[in-house]
């Protein structure tokens, strides 16, 4: 796997609370890597370098890595807010700086792609599904979701 992509997935797992296999299962990793790189290009390389350092320093210890990310990557003021935008992207399928831009026209502003909407992790986290996709079947709504049964 491409080094940047592997790093991006590793970092994304820490940012989203979904493991790498779950993230790969969305099929969105490369699209999102590109969206992040193009989203804030002047911060991108420095951000990836810092991410690599943080993950190395974390040494596979989840709590320690989390604390390092919280301090060195996640604050909105760092790297143009890349870490928060990447997290939101995985959850919603949207690149927030585009969708929330002042003057963005609600009637026309788009998700990163149709698949990005469908693969939004917020629906999985909520034990639901994206409206209009991944439909769980007749009468499923009358019972507990499969993910908590």
């Amino acid at each position, binding site marked *: 796997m491409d080094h940047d992509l592997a790093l991006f997935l590793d970092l994304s797992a820490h940012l989203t*609370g979904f493991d790498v296999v779950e993230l790969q299962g969305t099929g969105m990793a490369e699209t999102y890597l590109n969206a992040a790189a193009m989203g804030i290009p002047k911060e991108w390389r420095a951000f990836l370098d810092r991410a690599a350092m943080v993950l190395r320093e974390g040494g596979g210890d989840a709590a320690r890595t989390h604390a390092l990310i919280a301090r060195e990557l996640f604050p909105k003021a760092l790297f143009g807010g890349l870490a928060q935008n990447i997290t939101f992207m995985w959850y919603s399928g949207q690149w927030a700086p585009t969708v929330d831009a002042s003057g963005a026209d*609600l*009637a026309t502003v788009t998700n990163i792609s149709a698949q990005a909407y469908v693969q939004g992790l917020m629906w999985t*986290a909520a034990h639901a*599904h994206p409206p*209009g996709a991944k439909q769980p079947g007749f*009468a499923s*709504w009358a*019972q507990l979701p499969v993910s908590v049964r």
Partner: protein
Amino acid sequence: MSNRLHEFDVVIVGSGIAGAVLARTLTQAGKSVLMLEAGLQSGMAFDPEAAYANYQSYLQTFYEKANKATNGPYPDLPDAPSPDVLEIKPSTPYDTGYLVQMGPQPFASDCLRAPGGTTLHWLGNVPRMLPNDFRLKSRYGHGVDWPIDYETLQPYYELAEFEIGVSGDVAAQVGPDMGPQNYGTGYVFPMRQIPQSYQDQVWMRNAGPAQLEVEGRSYTLGFASMPQGRNSEPNPDYPYGAIHWNAGLRRFELAPSKHIYRVVGSVWSPYTGERCEGNAACVPMCPVQAKYNALKTLSRADHDRLTIRTQSVASRVLVDAATQEVSGIEVKTYRNPDDPSHGLHVVTGRIYVLAAGALENAKLLLASGKVANSSDQVGRNLMDHLVMLTWGLFDDEKVYSYRGPGCTTYIPTFRDGEFRSEFSAWISPLDNWGWSWPTFAPGTDVSDAIGQGLFGRDLRHRIGDVVPRQALLHFEVEQLPQASNRVTIDPRYVDALGNPRPVIHYDVSDYERKAFAAAKCASDQILCKARITDHTLYKPTDANHVTWKGRGYTFWGAGHIVGTHRMGSDARTSVVKPTQQSWDHPNLYLVGCGSMPTVGTSNPTLTMTALSFMAAQDILCKLDAPLR
């Protein structure tokens, strides 16, 4: 260019449910019909491949757009624009959208100008109106009475429930002024009820027997499953298989069938959409067409007798000054919806039906000079349900919102009662889709959590904890007819084809504002009993924020656009007869929600569909007899 095309028995403007019911019934009774539709040809596809491809293009647009508003998936046409709820602004007047909003309140609802009309994005709730809704004036001293009563409409409700394909439980329709007597002995819906959601079951368990005190009166809270125009399982006790025109008795009849009710699937395949699949996206679109839309009716018209012209925008109704009969409809046809160049034609028939929706029907009549308007009521009495929303979080258990159809259960308790002499009645659907309507959740929950510094497992746990506990309750408040709430036209405001845009004056009366206060009082008690902590927030900066006795309330539109050519028993105060024939022009019918004198507390589509059958019946009688 010829200014005269074909002669037809009936010319219908609009392919929404009212127009579709007329086209189907009239062609099946042997009449020739020309249907004009302002929207795109691609949306009128009935061969399976093209119908599927077009509908998938809507779905793709729905997925792509960040905002999931009602008209989002569908083409926006400069040559035939639709209103859009995304255009609504708090401060009036403004004319930045299709509707020219003169205020003081902006009109809060939209509709869709496309093949199939607004049934493409409707939710599909189809409760009947109540008997007392038809006598609001004589019973409670407000609004007007209808010129017909519930009993008169009842057989037409049965036709409408067949045509739409209603899933529901008649025995569950119990509440004030509502019970088995409203349906008649042994009546069942074509399909069994859509299962009530897991969330509904928690609401009912927690709050089912609650006693409420509202404005000095006591109420016992009730819940009922919502009848829906959405496929479930056929009810083997439902006896009917078709609607027939009985030429001898001059009426439509439901014909018994030896076979079980045949579920109507999607337009492109009978094996898609045979049952709701739980897409939880009914508004703005059901991906599998398990939800009824008018294209299903239109596809089953007799197409040997039906001519459909799309991209054809009716621009004027022409009247013969000597006979006062309509002599034709002027139509502007466009090739490219972005290009204002167009052809101009006149189409003719024996009878003309405007079925373009309450806004467009009124606009078209007003643009035609003094057509059908001796009463001066055209465009007036514009109504909607004023939807006050309250929302909160279940305290101690997850209900797993965002699953199933938008509404599977409603509270009928405040649909009727003596309080209607003081304030509006309302229906309260329980909403299965969390806070998505008022707060754009769950995306906002994610951005809020991230803004608080949450990421990783903490973020996933937060979303998994909060979103499944979200509860949303509607209070769909009956709006009274007011002459001053109206659609007008103004030569300064036209669309790309030069057709007028609707200019709207709109406000909310004290009768309705008082209902907001009463509804909030009821909500406080219901949420408490249901063990839901209220998170409702109405801001003075909201669009449609109104005050009553010093407190502020925000309402939203229901998309129930009603009243602009109301029926009545007196030509001086109404636009159409109960049959929806114009008082002024014997060969003109105005059908759709515009004919409703009041809106009651029912989603209006079912009632409007019943009225469309009534109009079709009258038209068939008139076509076979001298027009009078």
